[in-house]
């Protein structure tokens, strides 16, 4: 069963019933035809509810709430009853079905397929160290831990950037940071930090924002690439600190596409 399609069909029918109930000039819904339509629509709801219950994508309490509202609506339809009562129940069913069942189902089914999508994006990567971070990140995404997935995927980016910068040698790296500090170009003049590394692990202490700026300074990235990588770092920081932001699977996919293209599969970082 295409659950999303079935829920859309239900909502379409419910919207039509709502309209017809509102159009009634009587205070109660007494016509057999409209009451029969309510019962027929309820019959279409039952198999959908069964699939949703088995799928465990949506919250069980919300599902139960909608099922209870349906039961009450069908009970109303057994006899002529005030249309006010219909309106309240219909409004409740439509709103909860849309926001808590259908939208959650769509996001949840995106989570179920996100692993395949992300694995396809990172499939050309051969570095075992990177793949360890990425696989863990993808497993987080598959468990609907999108923020954790973002943070872990950034570990792979940071790993690759550190590796590339380490390959320059400590002396060159110190010199390049000093040159960047002295550069009065639009992009670099705000950079005022003194970095003096003495050992390779010191690089890990540098802020990622400064390391990617150095990558721009060293022309591993052009302006646009830098801008996109900075956005990816901002997303990582938003996910790695206590904020109310909760990226969805679509955002995660775009993030993965960016980091693979800009760093993980960028020949300038190999």
């Amino acid at each position, binding site marked *: 069963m295409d659950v999303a399609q079935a829920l*859309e069909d239900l909502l379409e029918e419910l919207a039509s019933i709502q309209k017809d109930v509102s159009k009634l000039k009587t205070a109660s819904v007494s016509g057999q035809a409209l009451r029969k339509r309510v019962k027929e629509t309820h019959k279409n709801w039952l198999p959908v509810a069964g699939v949703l219950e088995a799928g465990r994508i949506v919250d069980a309490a919300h599902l139960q709430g909608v099922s209870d509202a349906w039961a009450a609506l069908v009970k109303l339809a057994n006899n002529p009853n005030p249309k006010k009562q219909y309106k309240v129940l219909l409004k409740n069913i439509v709103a909860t079905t849309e926001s808590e069942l259908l*939208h959650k189902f769509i996001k949840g089914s995106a989570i179920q397929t996100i692993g395949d999508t992300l694995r396809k994006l990172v499939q050309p990567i051969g570095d075992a160290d990177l793949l360890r971070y990425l696989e863990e990140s993808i497993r987080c995404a598959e468990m609907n831990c999108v923020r954790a997935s973002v943070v872990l995927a950034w570990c792979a980016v940071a790993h690759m950037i550190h590796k590339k910068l380490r390959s320059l040698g400590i002396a060159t790296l110190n010199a390049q940071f000093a040159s960047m500090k002295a550069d009065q170009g639009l992009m670099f003049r705000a950079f005022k930090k003194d970095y003096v590394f003495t050992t390779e692990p010191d690089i890990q202490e540098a802020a990622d924002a400064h390391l990617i700026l150095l990558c721009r300074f060293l022309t591993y990235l052009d302006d646009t690439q830098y801008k*996109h990588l900075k956005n990816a770092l901002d997303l990582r920081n938003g996910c790695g600190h206590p904020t109310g932001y909760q990226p969805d699977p679509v955002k995660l996919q775009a993030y993965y*596409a960016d980091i693979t293209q800009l760093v993980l599969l960028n*020949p300038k970082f190999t």
Partner: protein
Amino acid sequence: MLNKLKADFDGILELVNKAPAPLQELAFKMILEQWFSANVAPKPVPSPPAPAPGVPGVPSGGAPDPVKPFLTANAITTAILEKVFNPLGPGAQLLASEIPGNGKANQMVNLSLLLCVKQALESGAFSCTLKELRELAVHYDCYDSSNFAATLKSNKNYYKPREKGADLELSGPGLKGAGELIKSIAAGE
């Protein structure tokens, strides 16, 4: 090279004049770009970077071959396309932070056009699944669940004939609509 350009210039102008007036500037630019790429010897590169892996059929810096007729027919340059999608190949992502259009229905139709082009950049087929359309529509806040099917039905000229629930594939008007949309997004409209 300058002499050759002088010799070819009248021919180029003649071609440009065949294009509709509003497109002449663009046509001139595209033809000149082609002329230069055909006539200027590439600079020797000491150590060319390795090609990006996993991007078969995608010329470096350009769109995949199956998309090129669509780009030409709609006068869309790579530079225009890059303002809407990145990269122009597998893993292509829609860059827009919001989908243009008046109301959810219009936005959702526009989104479907863009998703079909995105898919074409990946696989060459101008199609998209309803699952992907729903996911992106929720993301872009243009998902009108109770009118989803009705909206697609009332814009059915954009898509090839299909069964209910089947994937969307762009028709001729759909491709044209997608082209116009891409140009308007790139122009910041």
